[in-house]
């Protein structure tokens, strides 16, 4: 009996296996519509889309397609690019634009007017684009911008710390839900009382802001805050049902799941779920291409979730998707070699990997070996021993770029200062110079050729992740040539609290990104602020601090750029964050359905420029 049951059971299992033995249908292969299939490697997709809550993974990308900011920022030129807003100016006390004859902001006059003024703010006039509609057909107006910035500063309604941070440069404050200081002015919100004249016909398109008296104050307001539709959220949001409520009402949840935005795409709710997000191009999007056609060339974007990168890569190779929205390691290059149906994007990276030295640990963490790092000659010797070209060849399989000692990307031609790189380029010469420097301070060596500090070998630990072990191994070899021993030390899951903020490390690997849009924040965080900041090695250099502060606070953009230029050699000469390399962003797309992909610095091939440029094959 048991034998019969076993046989029947086996037959049942076999039947089930054969029943399951059918390949999935991969819709892209038969899809003749203008639909781009994008593979996204993430742990999950968002299923609700209140833009300010979208912080992880692919969520910010999707939020930026459904919603829009006032401007975007072009890192290469340092210019704001029109999105919801057409143009902006600083204005004088009469509300007149401070611009030169060509219509550009006149920074000399701005400095003249507000440099010594007792006013604590800069007034900014914003002119919005006309004819913009929300995805539900309602008109977009200046009141939507007022509502968004106002609720961002009003925690009683928004309950959103991020919004408070983004709007911190706006001089518009609430206390316990009551407006205590107004810093946003529209036709319907006190512009005329404040002395800002807005024509009635421009009532929906013009607004004024009072922002902190630094040039960088407008950047976050313009390029980070996704504008919300007032007509949707105002009736729903209250003190008892905040925008970011822990227990959102049914109405709020409905809006989270059926987002109404001003972006170029809208969410196809019926064809989206936790593993697929379908976006439809808005036919009424206000920005068009040069010929008046749609700015984005695909009608539909289908984002498919892959939780494992290898599976996603194979899905691309087998034609299940058009594009992979993930950067891939250079180790995968052999898979793509000689494939004529693929476009391989080897885009410049925007961040530099650096070796950070703990030059000024807190008193409790000072040790004889860490004291050595305070010696600038010693730091220079370490910088000389690093051969970026070899690192890029050996560790990155050549898919990287040399990073300047001033830590600014060379491709930012208007801002990059080549004089920051003063060290010789010849490897032998560098090593000789490094050894000469060290011989003057630490001439004694042990029998294995390592330098001695008193009675013990000079050994440093480099804090890193398992993925950084290859780099650290390379540094071991290089530093051995100048008699310095380094060892790998695991960073763990929360290195900031465990090691970095508490000065419990010798050296660490740290990625840094400096660009024109972030230098105000990043130079402070990396070179000035102590404690819980990215200034892990606690650099305290009064000359550098003073120059960074001048750069942050000057009202003259030309002077600001000059200061950024001057800061680079100063940063280089401190040998505090030693550049190792800047790795490229490798990504891949198939070209059998779409061609014309564009490589953009710091992005995968699935980027805004590609979407504006690709054309359907056949």
């Amino acid at each position, binding site marked *: 009996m048991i034998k019969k049951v076993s046989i029947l059971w086996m037959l049942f299992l076999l039947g089930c296996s054969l029943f399951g033995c059918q390949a999935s249908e991969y819709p892209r292969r038969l899809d003749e519509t203008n639909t781009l299939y994008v593979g996204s490697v993430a*742990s999950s997709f968002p299923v609700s889309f209140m833009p300010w809550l979208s912080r992880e993974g692919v969520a910010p990308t999707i939020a930026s397609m459904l919603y829009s900011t006032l401007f975007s920022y072009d890192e290469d030129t340092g210019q704001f690019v029109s999105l919801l807003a057409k143009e902006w100016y600083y204005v004088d006390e009469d509300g007149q634009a401070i611009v030169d004859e060509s219509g550009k902001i006149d920074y000399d006059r701005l400095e003249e007017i507000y440099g010594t003024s007792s006013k604590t703010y800069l007034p900014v006039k914003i002119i919005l684009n006309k004819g913009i509609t929300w995805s539900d057909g309602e008109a977009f107006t200046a009141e939507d911008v007022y509502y968004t910035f106002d609720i961002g500063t009003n925690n009683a309604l928004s309950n959103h710390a991020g919004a408070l941070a983004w709007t911190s440069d706006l001089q518009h404050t609430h206390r316990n839900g009551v407006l205590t200081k107004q810093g946003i002015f529209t036709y319907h919100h006190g512009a005329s009382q404040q002395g800002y004249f807005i024509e009635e016909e421009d009532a929906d398109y013009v607004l004024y802001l009072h922002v902190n008296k630094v040039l960088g104050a407008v950047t976050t307001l313009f390029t980070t805050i996704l504008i919300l539709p007032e007509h949707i959220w105002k009736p729903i949001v209250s003190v008892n049902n905040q925008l970011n*409520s822990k227990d959102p009402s049914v109405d709020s949840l409905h809006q989270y799941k059926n987002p109404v935005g001003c972006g170029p795409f809208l969410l196809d709710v019926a064809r989206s779920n936790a593993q697929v997000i379908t976006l439809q191009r808005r036919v009424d999007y206000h920005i068009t291409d040069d010929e008046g056609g749609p700015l984005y060339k695909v009608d539909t974007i289908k984002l498919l979730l*892959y939780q494992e990168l290898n599976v996603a890569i194979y899905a691309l190779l087998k034609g299940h998707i058009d594009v992979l929205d993930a950067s891939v390691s250079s180790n995968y290059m052999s898979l793509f070699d000689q494939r004529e149906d693929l476009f391989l994007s080897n885009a410049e990276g925007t961040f530099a990997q650096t070796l950070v030295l703990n030059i000024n640990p807190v008193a409790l963490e000072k040790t004889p070996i860490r004291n050595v790092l305070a010696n600038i000659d010693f730091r220079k010797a370490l910088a000389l021993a690093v051969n970026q070209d070899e690192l890029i060849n050996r560790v990155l399989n050549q898919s990287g770029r040399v990073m300047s000692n001033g830590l600014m990307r060379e491709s930012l031609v208007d801002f990059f200062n080549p004089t920051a790189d003063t060290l010789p380029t010849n490897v032998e010469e560098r090593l000789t110079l490094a050894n000469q420097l060290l011989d003057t301070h630490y001439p004694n060596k042990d029998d294995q050729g390592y330098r001695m500090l008193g009675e013990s070998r000079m050994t440093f630990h480099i804090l890193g992740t398992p993925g950084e072990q290859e780099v650290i191994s390379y540094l071991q070899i290089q530093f051995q040539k100048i008699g310095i021993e380094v060892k790998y030390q695991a960073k763990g899951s929360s290195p900031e*609290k465990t090691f970095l903020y508490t000065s419990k490390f010798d050296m660490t690997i740290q990625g840094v990104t400096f660009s024109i849009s972030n230098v105000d924040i990043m130079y402070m965080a990396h070179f000035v602020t102590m404690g819980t900041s990215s200034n892990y090695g606690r650099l305290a250099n009064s000359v550098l601090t003073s120059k960074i502060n001048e750069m942050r606070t000057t009202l003259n953009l030309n002077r600001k750029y000059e200061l950024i230029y001057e800061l680079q050699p100063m940063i280089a000469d401190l040998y505090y964050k030693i550049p190792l390399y800047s790795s490229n962003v490798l990504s891949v797309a198939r070209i059998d359905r779409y061609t014309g992909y564009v490589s953009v610095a710091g992005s995968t091939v699935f980027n805004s420029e590609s979407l504006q440029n690709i054309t359907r094959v056949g």
Partner: protein
Amino acid sequence: MQKGYVFKRILYAIFIFFIVMTLNFFIPRIGVTDPAERYYPPQGNMSEIEYDIIKQVTREQYGFDVSTFQQYLNYVEKLSRFDLGTSFKSGSPKVSDLIAQRLPWTLVLSVTNLIICLSIGISLGSIAAWKRGRWQDTALLNASTISTALPGFFIALILSFYLGFELELFPAYTNPNMISQFDWSFEAIKVVIANAALPIISMSIGGIISYAQGTRNSVIAVTNEDFILTARSKGLSQRQVLYKHTLRNAMLPIVTSIGMSISGLIGGAVIIEQIFNWNGMGTLFLEANSTNDYPLMMGVMLFMSSFAIVANLVTELCYSLLDPRVTVGERR
């Protein structure tokens, strides 16, 4: 079964649950004293006062605005109401709802896998033991050596690539619309079977061999016992000796293995779920981990741990039913 023994086991399980619950609260908090500094680092132009407000708001949002002990008490109080809290995900979904959505899909894989492993594994193990030293036994030993050397995720990747991507015999990964379009129709069930095939095969290979090996060893050990010799000398047939005497007594260590497998039913397929895009409990935990969603992480961990504790308790009680010596030993 002794009542005292049962009571003692239950008390012990409650004690373990209490420890797990406490660790579950404290472990995710290691290194995270202030979520504000993690999520909203100070901006360049922000004043100290502004940043203090932001930090305070963030602490309130994440429940870090009271002392750790108070947070722990709040957590225990909520748990006593079976409230696992709300996720940090957009829309603040309840953790229990997210678990309820994912659990059935994990059980589809793991329960099917367990049934397959048990039925095939025990059958093959019995055959190998009965045919000790012959090709059936040698084949099992060799398969065991190979499967020990091959981790489950590696088998899954190989199967996905060859049977899924190259030969296209099975779906290489789960159809993204499988869960959202599931409606108990014949077509929907067919889609589930098709999509579950490769993950289950990947999980089963190691499990079948492991159960077969365990059964073989156990059966061989029992076969050498005196009572088997007695049974044979009574003139019982080979089949009667195998099914009535040998297998029944060889079941004890197998029951332990089954208990362990049941306790791992929910959390044991994390990597397999990830490789095959199967939206189950394992990927929910990975998701919570990668997004620092502490309430979700804690909820999933606690659910998995509780399930394991209950499974272990049931196994121990079953064990004592099968072998009364266990309770006697406990009394001594």
